[in-house]
């Protein structure tokens, strides 16, 4: 069938947002059933988006190199409306469409300005999917940067106490990085004479950008992706944004928005600026290792659960950059795997925090203790994701970490030796968190009445549990799927690098 699958997947959520706005115009949001209707409608739209993305997935042939499901139509400003995916984009789109319905479920308890919330969430989904399938630099930038707007409002309106500060920090930090990337994008278009990403890749493979120019372009892209990922030392917006954001926004932030940084490195830095990537590899390794060790240590000292998970994200993203800039097949495969796994696990951990936050309205670790007595199912679920976060074999966290380290080991063993301590450190902070919250006896009297998972939360967690175990026990399906793309990136990189 020749339907524009990617456009449908991308713009279906936005169309749903338009539908909600239209309904609001006519109903004026007065009657009581309105909010419930909006929630249900949003859930249906996001599930439909997921199903359609599965169709697109079925259309996709992982054996073929290059971009598929391509749509290419004339547009304005010398750019084209050009969409397409390779297996990297496809997996990330699936991750997005898979997690968004769960986020909507997790947002069921939101009761302030429900329609606005849902509209923003749907628009955000459109923009996120767009990032992963845009094949034109300007279009990519449009989606990439546009995602800031809904996230800014989501954090600022529905966030915690210091939400305004966090929203500003998130927006301005990311904008500064992105605007430098915009200048670099403009420069690339001027040099190569095209804004199409596949053509730029071809240009890089055949003629190549001048290595001296590459350095500057690489740095500008780095400014954007390093903030987004985030890498040490430009990660400081992340703990603030995570802590203040509402649960579902934290999930999206950790699971998907951070992946845009890794996606950017894989899509642009390695294949289009191979020389500069090679030049900066030592720096990237150093920053990755610092992030892994330092963020793990910082995570251990946190008093706030969300902040702890935020720092653990910084550490896990360190493995991603370590793998990417090894430039080897294993490293890149591992980085992609780690991104997917982190998307599922960190999202799930934020949902776990959300469950008890909804009940007790605090994220302070010291408040909790002995939850296993009142919430056995919750304790089991939380255990699984904690182990996933640690990277225990059998969970999805393991293959990514081991592959990135195998990949990077071929380049520099010392860095990997230090990075490997991060695996142990992650066990230290994650298990300590788990012990403090769930094990022991209930000391805090306020926890006496806390209830276990309700059916909505069951629905929310089951897919994540399945995904974590499936990706842990049968990693080769995913690895086979991403193999062609990883190989293409690795060859593009090694082809140009000395």
């Amino acid at each position, binding site marked *: 069938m020749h339907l524009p699958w990617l456009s449908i997947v991308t713009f279906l959520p936005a169309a749903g947002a338009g539908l909600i706005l239209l309904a609001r115009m006519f109903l004026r949001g007065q009657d009581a059933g309105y909010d419930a209707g909006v929630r249900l409608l949003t859930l249906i739209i996001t599930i439909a988006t997921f199903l359609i993305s599965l169709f697109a997935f079925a259309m996709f042939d992982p054996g073929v190199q290059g971009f598929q499901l391509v749509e290419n139509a004339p*547009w*304005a*400003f010398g750019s084209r409306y050009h969409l397409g995916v390779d297996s990297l984009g496809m997996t990330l789109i699936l991750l997005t469409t898979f997690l968004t319905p769960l986020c909507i479920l997790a947002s069921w308890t939101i009761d302030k*300005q429900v329609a*606005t919330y849902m509209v923003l969430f749907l628009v955000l989904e459109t923009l996120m999917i767009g990032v992963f399938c845009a094949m034109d630099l*300007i279009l990519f*930038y*449009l*989606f990439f*940067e*546009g995602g*800031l*707007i809904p996230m*800014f*409002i989501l954090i*600022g*309106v529905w966030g915690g106490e210091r*939400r*305004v500060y966090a*929203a*500003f920090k998130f*927006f*301005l930090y990311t*904008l*500064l990085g992105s*605007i*430098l990337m*915009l*200048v670099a994008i*403009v*420069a690339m*278009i*001027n040099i190569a004479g095209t804004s199409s990403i596949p053509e730029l890749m071809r240009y890089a493979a055949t003629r190549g950008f001048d290595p001296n120019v590459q350095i500057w372009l690489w740095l500008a892209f780095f400014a954007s992706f390093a903030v987004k990922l985030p890498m040490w030392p430009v990660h400081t917006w992340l703990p603030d944004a995570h802590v203040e954001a509402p649960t579902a926004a934290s999930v999206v932030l950790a699971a998907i928005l951070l992946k845009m940084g890794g996606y950017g490195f894989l899509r642009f830095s390695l294949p289009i600026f191979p020389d500069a990537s090679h030049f900066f590899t030592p720096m990237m390794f150093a920053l990755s290792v610092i992030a892994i060790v330092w963020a793990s240590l910082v995570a251990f000292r946190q008093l706030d659960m969300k902040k702890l998970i935020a720092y653990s994200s910084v550490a896990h993203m360190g493995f991603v950059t370590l793998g990417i800039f090894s430039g080897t097949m294993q490293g890149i495969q591992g980085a992609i795997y780690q991104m997917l796994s982190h998307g599922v696990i960190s999202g799930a951990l934020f949902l776990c925090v959300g469950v008890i936050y909804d009940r007790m309205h605090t994220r302070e670790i010291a408040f909790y203790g002995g939850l296993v007595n009142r919430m056995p199912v919750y304790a089991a679920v939380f255990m699984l994701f904690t182990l996933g976060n640690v990277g225990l074999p059998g969970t999805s966290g393991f293959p990514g970490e081991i592959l990135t380290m195998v990949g990077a080991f071929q380049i520099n063993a010392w860095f990997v030796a230090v990075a490997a301590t991060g695996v142990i450190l992650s066990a230290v902070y994650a298990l300590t968190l788990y012990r403090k919250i769930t094990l022991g006896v209930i000391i805090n009297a306020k926890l006496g009445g806390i209830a276990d998972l309700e059916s909505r939360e069951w629905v929310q967690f089951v897919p994540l549990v399945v995904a974590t175990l499936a990706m842990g026990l049968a990693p080769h399906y995913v690895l086979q799927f991403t193999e062609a793309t990883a190989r293409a990136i690795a060859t593009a990189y090694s082809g140009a690098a000395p």
Partner: protein
Amino acid sequence: MNAPLTDFLASAAHARPELLLTAFALLAILAGAWFRDKSAAPLSGLGVAVLLAAGVVAIMDRPLAPVEIFQGSLVVDGLSVFAKALIAWSSAATLLLGADHFAKTNERRFEFPVMIVLATLGMFVMVSARDLISLYVGVELQSLSAYVLAAWRRDDARSSEAGLKYFVLSAIASGLLLFGSSFVYGFTGSIRFDAIASAIAQGAHGVGLIFGLVLMLCALAFKMSAAPFHMWTPDVYEGAPTPVTAFFAAAPKVAAVALMMRILYEPFAAFSDQWRQVVVALSAISMVWGSIAALLQTNLKRLMAYSSIGNVGFALMGLAAGQGQGPTSALVYLALYLPATIGIFALILAMRREGAAHETVADLAGLGQKRPWMASMFTMLLFSIAGIPPFAGFIGKLLVFRAAVDANLAWLAVVGGIAAVIAAGYYLRLLASIWFSPSQQTLQPASSAIVVTATSAAALTFPVLVLVLGAIQQWAEWAVGRSF
């Protein structure tokens, strides 16, 4: 050259927009003298129609190649047509807002539409000027009307101060303009732009000529409120009645930028190495200072004054980039800046409680809960003027960046990028007030004039219309292709 009468008649056929405005202004004065302020409402309505029509007529009469009229003192070409359409329509929008506003405040006076139309006529002459005399006449006609408009609220000390301040400082700028023009005339022996260009081509040069050019540029920078010639802007913008401020922030910028474009690319194209330094400096200082100074403002009109300074800086970046993509990008930038700024002023006008205007950032608090639609429009317009995709203003920034990088001014684009981030800081402050703060008392319902203006402005910034934006770029390219 034809006999004066034949030339006049032949020229008149190409000057229909100007003649339309002149006729309206003269008849409106007559009607006003007769019927007094009772005629304010019908004259305003008619004025809006005439301004809209003038823009349409200008586009309908667009020539295939530049046409010189009135013995070569004016020219009708792509640039002037494009600028006239923008000027006429933004003047019409501000006249609409103004008539509505003054009806509410019981300050209805029939001179308002007359002054707006005369100022617009002045701007039409500016963008068509082909010699130094018509240049000066156009600038002065616009400025004189603007002084009166700034001091519109006669009983209000701040408004009178705004008018006086504007007059005194602007008169100095006009003096500089004349002084500079006299140098240019003295060193090239002509007031006509083409003659100046050929004199330069034949070797006319010297410090005096550069001196004259720089003085003229300074004067125009003052008129478009580019830093460091912006000192008057915040005070005048704050003191003048809000619809008048909206008018100042919109059309005159287009006129001044278009005029500067013509001077730089037509008579002084050969001096591009010299003037580029000046324009680059104006651009960089405006962008940076416009962003930084706005961070501290609490009054929305003052804040918008600095915002307009920063935006002029971006348009000047396009001019500095030179003949390649520069003029097109500056025109597109302005075309996208206009609806955003007029829309924001329309919404500022809507911020009235119990008959009194509330114009500080704190007054926006809680708009997101009380008036979600108005808040959404504000959001779209602010993100657009901040240049955040996917809103239209981003395209303007993209094009001027592209022009700058193309002209080896990548550093200026980086400066602009950083300025844009700082500017985003204060736009976000407004948005934070709108969405994140607890709500205050409800505002009065907005009048239909405001709703129409703000909605259409917000619609123009909306990304769905991205195809329209492509058309704007094509028109701008057409306009630049039919000029110089």
